[in-house]
């Protein structure tokens, strides 16, 4: 242990480890940023320059691709639809979810364990696709924004996350508030809600991203163009402009950038939502 060579050895080995780690991290980063950079580059090129050499750097910046995509693709309308669907379904869902999760976590309703299990097994149930369609069809809500929003009023994982979080809030609080004459609904609304804000934020973000990115439901349920959310709009746009990559890339990028910015702010909530309960098993 005292020879110089063995003293140096660990130092050098750690160095190699660090270099190797960075090499792997950079390799993967290229795999993730490459498609994004290609998107940016293509969106700034003209069609002839793209056809000549797809990967060459854009020498002049052709922002008209963005203008063309924005106007021709009817994006403002689709974006507005997406915002409306996401906002309304998430709001209704979270309000209902808190009033489901709280009494379950506290045992204020009978069979709360059974009810929770019902939500947990949702992951393993058969796909609901076909009967869901029959339901919406027979309710006369096919190609109807209300029927579409209805589909997103459920998210079992969110209930589980809320229940777990509410369990960390001391019961004494309930007692104290009740003694002060606070009613149940007011207690949940004004005291529990603010206390479980981190869990609510996580669930809202998870649920909203799911609705925003949904592609299958609008394909099945919405046939009128004026009801399309942005995902469906983008696929339709691809169908028409599929070969005009500069314009299509501009369209995709216009949707990607706001999501990426939002992501940087909300990352914490997304991560905690996706890893919820994973550590304990």
């Amino acid at each position, binding site marked *: 242990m005292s020879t110089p060579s063995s003293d140096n050895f660990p130092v050098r080995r750690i160095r190699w480890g660090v270099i190797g780690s960075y090499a792997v991290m950079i390799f993967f980063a290229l795999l993730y940023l*490459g498609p994004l950079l*290609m998107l940016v580059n293509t969106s700034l090129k003209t069609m002839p320059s793209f056809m000549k050499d797809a990967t060459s750097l854009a020498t002049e910046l052709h922002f008209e691709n963005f203008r063309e995509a924005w106007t021709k693709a009817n994006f403002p309308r689709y974006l507005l639809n997406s915002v409306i669907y996401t906002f309304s379904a998430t709001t209704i869902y979270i309000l209902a979810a808190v009033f489901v999760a709280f009494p379950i976590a506290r045992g204020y309703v009978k069979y709360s364990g059974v009810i929770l299990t019902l939500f947990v097994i949702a992951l393993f149930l058969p796909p609901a*696709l076909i009967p869901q369609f029959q339901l919406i069809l027979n309710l006369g809500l096919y190609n109807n924004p209300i029927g579409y929003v209805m589909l997103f009023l459920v998210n079992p994982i969110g209930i589980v996350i809320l229940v777990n979080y509410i369990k960390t809030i001391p019961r004494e609080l309930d007692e104290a508030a*009740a003694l002060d004459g606070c009613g*149940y609904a007011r207690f949940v609304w004004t005291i529990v809600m603010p206390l479980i804000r981190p869990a609510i934020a996580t669930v809202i973000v998870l649920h909203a991203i799911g609705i925003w990115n949904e592609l299958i439901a609008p394909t099945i349920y919405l046939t009128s163009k004026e009801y399309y959310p942005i995902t469906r709009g983008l696929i339709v746009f691809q169908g028409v402009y599929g070969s005009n990559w500069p314009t299509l890339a501009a369209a995709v990028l216009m949707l990607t950038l706001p999501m990426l910015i939002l992501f940087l702010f909300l990352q914490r909530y997304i991560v905690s939502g996706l890893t919820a309960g994973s550590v304990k098993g």
Partner: protein
Amino acid sequence: MSYHFGRGWAKLIPYLLLLPGLFFYFLISFGPSMATAFYSFTDATGIRGAPVRWIGFDNYREFLFMGRASLDNLDALKRTLIFSFVVTTVQFTLGLIVALIVNQKLRFSNIFRTIYFMPVILGVVIQGLMWSLFLFPIGGPVAKLLALFGLRSEFLGGQPAEAFAWVIFIQIWANLGVTMMIFIAGLQTIPSELYEAARIDGANTWQVFTNVTWPLLTPSVNTNLLLNTIGSLQAWQLFLVLLGYRNGTQVLGYLIYATGFGQTSGSVTTSFRQGYAAAASIVLFLLVLVIGMTLQQYLQRREKRILG
């Protein structure tokens, strides 16, 4: 579980307020899931008001044992298993490696972590279109890279097997971040004293991994394996964005959608055969159930053996 907010009728208030959430769940999710079994024995179509007749096991018989079409179905089933197996094993292994590397707390490692997680928020449409462009066969970046090695590929427009392989790759690319994050969450629960103790005992990096990290990571291993397996058995949306309903590439999830809601593939247009699609849903469900339960059993026994 004493209830503090009043007596008598007031005790019913929590039930009343719980009802909307429960109602939505039963109406939109739980009920329809259960009804899938019922519809699988009928000839339901997607036409409003059309009569729905009970036809027993006909859909299943047709799905599994009737000529050319059921051979295609069995191919789709086999493909689903291959897809799930490859995606799960590769995503699990790479996710673990990347998590171990990122978790070393090297400089900038948080930035790298964020980059890998990015596709998760973008959703299948953007993921798919991004890669359609990146895999542009004429002078696209990957095409050029392959050309350096004298290789050529049609990528998503190539032979079915090749296109299928690219979808597997993109599926892993898109979801690696989730696997990584779950592993990182698990790694952060391992107390650092254990690493120090192992080092003092003279363990090398590999021994530390096999004796400390791997066994203590068991909960994250279980979560990732179960989530990835079940998720990839049911995944098919990237196929829709990247390939469309193309012969030789279908998986069960896509087949259910295509038969239930009509889908054009070349010159063939399928009709709205919702009873048949429901039967296919049940086949997929049984597949998920059997594989999921077996895996769960195995993982639980393994966890008991390791963590006592």
